[in-house]
């Protein structure tokens, strides 16, 4: 076992991990953070997407030990009190949510995009979520949501 310290959704965390375990395993099984989902366990579907130092990563294939000293944000960390992040609100308003299993990962991939690129084209949005699989929506309303949110995010 190995002790690591990192920032999770703004709080300082200290946790003892198995050096072989994934970030997703640590979040779900040790810390009870269930927002990130496991859809494949192989980095193919993006349901486990979280932000490490503001960059979207597949937590299921990201070694837990690597977040030592870094900042991790999961879907649970996006909301400011009662206020949803504009991307979360956009997903609700445009009807981008169906079964919801891909939603946390989609939103965090979108956040990575909009944090780095204020006015992405639809093609750039498609590229940014191309590692996130959704079987319910056909992606249409997810792309709408991110485009809609980009207007809100760039205003703020």
């Amino acid at each position, binding site marked *: 076992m190995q002790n690591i310290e990192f920032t999770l959704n703004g709080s300082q965390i200290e946790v003892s991990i198995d050096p072989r375990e994934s970030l997703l395993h640590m979040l779900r099984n040790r810390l009870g953070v*269930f*927002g*990130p*989902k*496991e*859809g*494949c*366990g*192989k980095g*193919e*579907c993006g*349901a486990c997407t979280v932000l490490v130092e503001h960059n979207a990563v597949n937590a299921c294939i990201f070694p837990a030990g690597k977040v030592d000293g870094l900042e991790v944000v*999961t*879907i*649970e960390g*996006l*909301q400011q009190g009662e206020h*949803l992040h504009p991307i*979360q*609100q956009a*997903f*609700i*308003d*445009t*009807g*981008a*949510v*169906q*079964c*919801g*299993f*891909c*939603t*946390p990962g989609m*939103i965090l991939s979108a956040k990575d995009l909009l944090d780095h690129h204020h006015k992405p084209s639809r093609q750039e*949005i*498609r*590229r940014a*979520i*191309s*590692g*996130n*699989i*959704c*079987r*319910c*929506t*056909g*992606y*249409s*309303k*997810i*792309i709408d949501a991110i485009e809609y949110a980009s207007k809100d995010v760039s205003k703020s």
Partner: protein
Amino acid sequence: MKKQAYQVIGKSLPRSDAYDKVTGKARYTVDVEVPGMLHAKVLRSPYPHAKVVRIDVDRAKSLPGVAGIVTWENTPRVLFNATSTHTQSPPPFEAVKDQYIFDNKVRYVGDEVAAVAATSPEIAEEAIRLIKVDYKILPAVMTVEEAEETSAPRIHEDKNNSNMIGSPIENNMGDIQEGFKCSAHTVECTYTFPVQKQCQLEPQAALAMKAEDGRMMVYSTTQAPHPTRKILSDIFSLPMNQIRVANPPYVGGAFGVRIGFSAKAEPIAVALALLTEKPVKIVYSRDEDFIASETRHAGTIRVKLGFSDDGIIQAADVESRMNGGAYASWSVDVNGAINSRALTIYRIPHLHFHGYSVYTNTTLAGAARGFGAPAPTYAMEMTVDKAARTLNMDPIAFRLKNIIQVGDAWSAPFPCRSTGLKECMERGKKRIGWDDFSKKSYDSNHPRYLRGVGMAVGNHISSAFPFQTDYTGANVYVLPDGSVQVETALVEMGTGVKTTLGQIAAEVLGVPMESVWVKIGDTDSSYDIGGQASRSLYAGGSAVKKAAEAVREQILAYVALKQDCTVDNLDLRDGWIWVHNEKAMPFSEMTQDADYHNVQFSRLEKHKTDNALSWHAHFARIKIDTWTGKIFVEKLVAAHDMGKAINPQIVEGVIEGGVSMGIGYALSEEITYDHHGKQIQDSYHKYMLPTSMDYGEIEPIIVEAHEPSGPFGARGIGENSVAAVAPAIMCAVRNLLGIDVTELPLTPERLLKQIALNK
């Protein structure tokens, strides 16, 4: 008729589950944890067909942390069918029950041999590796042709003298010989279809435990809680009321893969929970989900169509042969659906259908979104397109001459009371720019690219009636504070039913949407056959509407008495009681008053069991790269008539998702087998599931032809948009290249081969 002004339905209100889902608070079966729970893993067969001679579990058992091991030797020898259909089929339909939790024979690569419960998934996994199994390998059959040979090995020796699953489906109307005799033209073709996987994001999962009330509690990813409970009750000889099956409350997609058991997650979890007397959770890995849970049926369909000089269809002869895989699941019923999807779109005076499925040593085929629809819709629509070409007629004009109208005779066991198919075709045609694109066009700057359009139509059911029992109980009651509780066992697997059922109750009771809470996915609500057959809104909505209307009557009678007026002078709207068109008191004040007088407003209702077809026309604009063989769908216009759209935004979303699955079916998705009988595509990447980069824009169009049998005129929409996508795309391919695509998916390799053959 006076157009009614609705307050809540027909509006794109935000989904009531959206907040939970965008904040990460939504709970799924994979997220459920209880103290002291064990984790289960399954040992699966590496062979497609073998006798299990001996299982040695001694080493696995002695591994620290292992709490229990189940095999065929210590689990009930009760045959079942893991789906709702052969649990809910009324006579004369004959149930085909051919599965045990574990058997002493394995019938496909991935078939269950044993399962271990341990204190961690890792220990369970290690224990699985320590189980030693002696197999006697048997010859395997992978295709329909192999399985039909007289010398073929029998996959279920006890069933009958062949590998046929149940009995064939036969349908006759008119006189087929006569029909072809009076046809000036005939066209005929056979089409071949691949195995498609549902690919729902949440893997199969269940958690079973003895609950505090003494019952067996099963959290599950099922899309049919009540049928699942019924199958568990049969296997474990427990009364149905001693088992509770519930989603916790969400299901991460389903698409037909768990209409009944989630593969075998539920019975394995229950068997281990009974053995170890501890809670047991099982979550399939993605590759297990791929190889060991149901798929769409692969197979072939032959269509022969006869028509007159002026383009009137006279006769259709359709034959289907489906690969059912190792266990029956939905394999009998699928041919009923194929018959219905192929032969209810057009007026066909003389028709004949014959269809059956056979056992093979492949993953069992079951239900998949658009049950039975994509293959026959493809075969029929490609043939109809060909017929129109034979006559040099515009394919839309040909179809308009032949589509079913209200009151027409057809072979479905319920009448056609409404259809907006004509409007779907007209509006879709305009939106895609049919007249501009219907001629072959080269991109003048890039002669390697071809651009063009194609179209196809289809329909789908709104319930499972009369093929299964089909009913939903809905309980609606008003609480003393004026809030409304709606209870059904329908499942929120993404289709929006938690929202739309709430909209229906809110509309009827004249309360704001926020006042209504909808309980879902739990056998502790009244009986229901689950989220399947595009029925949740049509059947469940009808039940909720009927119950809410009864509650409304109770309220009006109570208020009339209080206000000393007749109910005609009363209304419920916007959360208020209106007397003589004036606001008299808030709804909540009235309910509090009723409570003080020992009055409760409540009703449990069941809908009037019925069925109706929803209609659609799809138009594809594609770009073919003739160098690489790659087809890109630039635009897919999907015009759908689902009767009243209770929530248009949800309807659009559902259409778009189905279209995406249809594009995958047409161009990339397929599971094939290696020469050891092992599935080659067992992960998302190998399987080529469409991503956000793989096609252009999907444009849904909503057409609302009022359906008399549906709630507020609504019909089903859930599964409608998968089937017509492939024929729309391939009609465009035929326009551009003159190729009749007879095998799906049309991968770049297959297209290049076709182009080379055609040269």
